[in-house]
């Protein structure tokens, strides 16, 4: 069981979902992700590799080490929890897309060569786009097409980079890149999936349009596979420190302006991935292990928060804070479970984020990147402000509306179970950090619960709470959207129509009209030559001569035309020779 690709079970599961009846498909999804988890945790040994040759290329479709195993394991865990969360779903396409998307993500993290990586990278992109398109919202298909457009461009850049790299080095093995144009192309492609500004806007555009359960898979796979490849291929590329800190702040700044709770969380994915990208740029052992631990925890707590907002969407039929509020008495359990995720992402002691985020900020400080560390602290404040205070306050409390929000549906039991599973893991990681570090095969010695760090973190959180209390009116959501860098391609249809489509249409319609006129005139000339000639813009003399010619008997006219044709041919042949 240990020797085949971990992605294989999910590919098989996806294929079976396409043919099996609805009543077994949810269980099949849970089973496929569950078996994959079993394979990764129990049967797949560290340092396992599978090397082969294909068309003369040396390939390594399977490479297992601590880094790939950590990412693969958390993908399988969230796959199980997301499948349980979506047990009520009967949409075959959505279920298959989730499995193929998961297989793509697992294929990428266990790929030892760039060719295998590219193949699974594209599988993941297609699966994700299909998953978004099945969101069931009016804008889902358009968002999926925009997602596909961005990721096809990113995929093309990746293929170009890989081919260039192969031409330069003669190797397709995936390892650390030491610079050069090919590496930069590959980095750009990875940056697209990591949602590094300015190629980030697809994330906040697409994820909120997915279904309640579809968004859980999306939030886990695409950006975290990008984090994995950055950690493996671009560690110590210092430019990533700048990109990472910009990401961390960018997400929290945009989150202030957001009204949609799912878009707010999408911006916080960008922010949290910023911590991991910064760590990749730092590149020390502590930073890499911190980023790996943070990615693991992030998949769980972000998945939990997206599950909870999905439950709100299912029950209330909206995700806009201006239309929500006062839900706490009627959705106590969802609120409680959401807050476990919110405390985790905010790095509250005893929750998952505290034991992982502190590794990243600690590494930034100990490796001499004080400014980056300070900016990450600012981002942490923003994270608690939005996900721990603003979102829950305006969703579950803070309502002065005359009529309470109408709940249109009951939250399915599977959603509660999925959320409870993720919440239990977030708390377990927070309470037992050493067990978590051992499970992750981290080699450094970390102690997140030292007195200084714990008290300082609590100080930050409490006084962020005070700041929120003082500025709650300024944070009140408004029914608006903020322009991001996706504006050009979201609105590209109109200029494309004016600049390209309409001129082309004019050319073709002119040609069409000319053709119609010629046909009409020829028809008229056959029945009434004189009338036809009258309509031509000819001089009187020419018109009279033509009328005389056309008035001759048809045979004479035909012979005349024949002779004229032969004459022209002879002239052409003579001139040609």
């Amino acid at each position: 069981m240990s020797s085949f690709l971990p992605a294989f079970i999910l590919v098989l599961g996806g294929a079976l979902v396409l043919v099996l009846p609805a009543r077994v498909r949810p269980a099949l999804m849970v089973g496929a992700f569950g078996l994959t988890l079993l394979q990764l945790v129990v049967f797949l040994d560290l340092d396992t590799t599978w090397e082969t040759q294909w068309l003369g290329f040396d390939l390594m479709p399977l490479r297992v080490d601590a880094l790939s195993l950590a990412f693969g394991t958390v993908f399988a865990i969230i796959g199980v929890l997301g499948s349980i969360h979506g047990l009520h779903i009967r949409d075959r396409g959505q279920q298959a897309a989730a499995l193929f998307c998961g297989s793509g993500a697992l294929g990428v993290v266990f790929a030892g060569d760039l060719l295998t990586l590219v193949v699974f990278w594209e599988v993941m992109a297609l699966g994700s786009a299909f998953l978004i398109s099945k969101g069931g919202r009016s804008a889902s298909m358009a968002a999926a097409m925009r997602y596909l457009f961005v990721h096809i461009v990113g995929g093309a850049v990746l293929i170009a980079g890989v081919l260039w790299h192969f031409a330069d080095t003669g190797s397709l093995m995936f390892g650390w890149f030491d610079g050069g144009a090919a590496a930069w192309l590959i980095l750009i492609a990875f940056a697209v999936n990591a949602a590094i500004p300015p190629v980030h806007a697809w994330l906040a555009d697409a994820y909120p349009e997915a279904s309640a359960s579809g968004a859980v898979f999306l939030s886990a796979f695409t950006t975290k596979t990008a984090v994995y490849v950055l950690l493996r291929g671009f560690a110590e590329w210092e430019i990533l420190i700048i990109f990472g800190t910009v990401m961390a702040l960018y997400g929290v700044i945009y989150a202030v302006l957001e009204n949609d709770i799912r878009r707010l969380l999408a911006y916080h994915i960008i922010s949290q991935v910023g911590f991991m990208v910064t760590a990749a740029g730092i590149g020390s052992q502590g930073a890499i292990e911190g980023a790996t631990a943070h990615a693991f925890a992030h998949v769980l707590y972000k998945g939990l928060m997206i599950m909870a907002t999905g439950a709100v969407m299912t029950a209330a039929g909206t995700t806009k804070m201006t239309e929500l509020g006062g839900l706490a008495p009627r959705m106590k359990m969802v609120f409680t479970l959401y807050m476990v995720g919110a405390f985790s992402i905010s790095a509250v002691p005893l929750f998952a984020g505290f034991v992982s985020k502190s590794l990243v900020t600690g590494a930034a400080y100990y490796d001499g990147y004080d400014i980056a560390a300070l900016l990450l602290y600012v981002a942490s404040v923003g994270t608690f402000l939005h996900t721990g205070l603003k979102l829950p306050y305006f969703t579950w409390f803070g309502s002065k509306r005359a009529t309470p929000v109408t709940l249109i549906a009951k939250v399915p039991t599977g959603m509660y179970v999925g959320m409870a599973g993720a919440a239990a893991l977030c708390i377990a990681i927070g309470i037992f950090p050493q067990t978590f570090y051992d499970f992750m095969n981290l080699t450094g010695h970390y102690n997140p619960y030292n007195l200084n760090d714990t008290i300082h973190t609590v100080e930050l959180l409490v006084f962020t709470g005070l700041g929120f209390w003082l500025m709650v009116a300024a944070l009140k959501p408004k029914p608006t959207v903020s322009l991001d860098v996706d504006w050009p391609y979201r609105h590209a249809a109109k200029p494309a129509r004016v600049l390209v489509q309409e001129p082309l249409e004019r050319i073709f319609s002119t040609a069409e009209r000319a053709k119609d006129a010629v046909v009409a005139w020829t028809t008229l000339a056959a029945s009434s030559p004189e009338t036809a000639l009258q309509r031509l813009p000819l001089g009187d003399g020419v018109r009279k001569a033509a009328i005389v010619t056309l008035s001759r008997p048809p045979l004479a006219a035909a012979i005349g035309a024949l002779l004229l044709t032969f004459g022209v041919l002879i002239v052409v042949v003579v001139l040609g020779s």
Partner: protein
Amino acid sequence: MRLTRNLAAALTLAIIATLAADAGLAFTDKVKAHFPYSDIIGFYIAFGLVSTFAIVYGSKWLGTILERTDEDDDDEEQADE
């Protein structure tokens, strides 16, 4: 209203406890601090408050620069297209 009072009370207690803990840190053997200036009493308190104000007002200011359209504009435009 009762909830608001409870939350306000909890926040007040948390602030008092945090201030006490921060003052108490001055009398303990410290693990190496993350930043040289973090030894200053109340540094993280000020940092949390100032960061919150900076994020909120900075974002609001950016929001006035970034042209913000009504939420339904995008949907209508896409429907037209």
